[in-house]
């Protein structure tokens, strides 16, 4: 993995970030550097501000203080280099459109105003669908997709954005084991291609397998760095309180901060 020329500037730099909803702080004075070409998990208990963190990086929420720079620039300037996978539950899947059309939405940023997606865009979209093994579903109405398929469609849409930095909100939420493996393979490919990928993640057990970088969050930043260095009992206890039975015990009971997500498909 070759670091880009600007190896000194991190891919994402968060400085003194504080976000509050109605006086209630969701993120408090967070500093976070995400280096280039890492696959990073953001973990933490419910209400720890994980989603808010992603949204603040994307300039979707207005911080009370602090700023975020992506690739050394403000989001306004770098947004063409940023791909986004929102939570799958954030949209109405009964919307009258098909899979290919949703993936094409990832091209709108590059298209600019008024111009409609053309043949080249369709080709890119189909390639992305191929990568997530959904090419056969291109013409499928989106309400007919299972949860895992919806997630793959969102991932394909982010892939056609052809970004340097990918921000994903729970890309593994409610998907079956097969889809989870397929998604993580794609994310690791992205990292190998020099992209930076940040995921909100819930399953502590899979963190060491899937990710090489991690940030533990609970309103404040507890720790961030290489998984091998910071993903340990002490930090997890700091992030989750006493509520988690931990990994290093190599116990039979898996460390899960959440009840296992419902498998929808």
């Amino acid at each position, binding site marked *: 993995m070759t670091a880009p020329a600007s190896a000194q500037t991190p891919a994402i730099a968060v400085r003194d970030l504080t976000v509050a909803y109605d006086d209630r702080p969701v993120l408090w004075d967070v500093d976070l550097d995400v280096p280039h070409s890492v696959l990073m998990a953001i973990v933490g208990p419910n209400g720890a501000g994980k989603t808010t963190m992603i949204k603040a990086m*994307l*300039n979707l929420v207005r911080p009370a203080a602090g700023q975020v720079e992506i690739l050394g620039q403000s989001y306004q300037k770098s947004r063409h280099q940023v791909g986004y996978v929102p939570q799958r539950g954030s949209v109405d899947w009964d919307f*009258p*459109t*098909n899979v290919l059309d949703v993936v094409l939405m990832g091209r*709108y940023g590059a298209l600019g105003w*008024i111009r*409609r997606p053309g043949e080249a865009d369709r080709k890119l979209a189909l390639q992305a669908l191929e990568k997530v093994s959904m090419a056969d579903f291109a013409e499928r109405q989106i309400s007919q997709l299972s949860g895992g398929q919806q997630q793959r469609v969102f991932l394909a849409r982010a892939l056609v954005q052809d970004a340097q930095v990918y921000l994903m909100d729970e890309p593994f939420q409610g998907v079956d084991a097969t889809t989870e493996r397929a998604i993580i393979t794609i994310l690791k490919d992205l990292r190998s291609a020099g992209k930076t990928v940040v995921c909100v993640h819930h399953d502590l057990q899979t963190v060491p397998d899937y990710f090489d970088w991690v940030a533990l969050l609970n309103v404040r930043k507890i720790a961030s760095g290489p998984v091998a260095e910071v993903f340990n009992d002490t930090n997890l206890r700091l992030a989750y309180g006493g509520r988690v039975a931990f990994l290093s015990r190599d116990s039979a009971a898996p460390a899960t901060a959440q009840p296992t997500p419902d498998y929808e498909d």
Partner: protein
Amino acid sequence: MFPEFLTDIYTDYTIRNITLGAMTLGFVSGSLGTFAVLRRQSLLGDTISHAVLPGIILAFMLTGSRDPLILIIGAAIVGWIATLSIMAIVNTTRIKPDASLALVLSVFFGFGMMLMTFVQRQPEAASAGLSRFLFGQAAAIIWDDVRTMLIVGGSAMVILLIFWKEFKLVVFDRAFALSMGMPVRRFDVLLTTLLVIAIVIGLQTVGVVLMSAMVVAPAAAARQWTDRLGFVTLLAGGFGALSGVSGALISVYMTRMPTGPTIVLCLTVVVVFSLLMAPNRGLLWSWVRQHRQSREIRSRVVLGDLYWLSAQHEGAEHGHSIGTLEAMSAGRVAVDHGLEDLERAGLAQRTGDDNWMLTESGRHQAQKDLQSGERESADV
């Protein structure tokens, strides 16, 4: 009477104006309404259409004119004020959105009715026609109205075409649109403006009380027939135009009823037909599908039971009584109908009075079911 007025459409000015006007307003409000429905703003549409009444009357009082463009502008301005009031109430108080919609609707509409009563007590004859804004009157459409509808509605359609892909994305996935740097808030304003246009364009013909039906119903009906946004929008426009024209002509030439209710009745026919008959989403379709499925399950259960029984009896050519099968399924399924379905499919045969056994292909089918059942449970 009917054929007469079909030829009249080409010759009679009045009929031509009514037809053209009703068609334009139906198409514009129907197609723009698609976006209102997808944004879940149907009730906002209803509120705006009631709330514009004082705008119409005030525009008349201030200018003394009944020029449709002036009245429409008055309606649009007050429609906007109503929308802003709703947003202000929701954002600054603890009143929930539905209550604030109802509040604004009744306050504005009540004020409008008061103004209307006041104006009609005045001696000037010019105010006489204002009450038609309540339930609409197609007979009063003149060429000026049609021209106004074409210009206002046409501009709205052009805006819809220009920003088609942006509107689609903003409505489908707001956060993603924001992340791309789209001015989502401005598009909100634009879409709400289009909703206001969709409403004010038909006020004179359909009336404030029922205008929201023109916005919501065509889209709801069109959604039944297609899964593509473009087709939904076009079809909603088509349904709107169809109901608009038929309702207007029926009200003017046959029933002498106010136009709004007649148009809504025509719309109702379209909506009910779509809800029942549309493939896939239609109720009739899903009843048939459900019935077929439950029959399929019933015969599979009976097939499995028969197979189990025959396995107990060492493959002998042995019939089993309906009574035994009924006991096995414990009243969950109607065994006799299930057996008849199996017989029709050639999977089971009678061996005498009320005794049944599997055929050769029935045995194969049961084995296949069993295997695939095991596979499925292994997957879980």
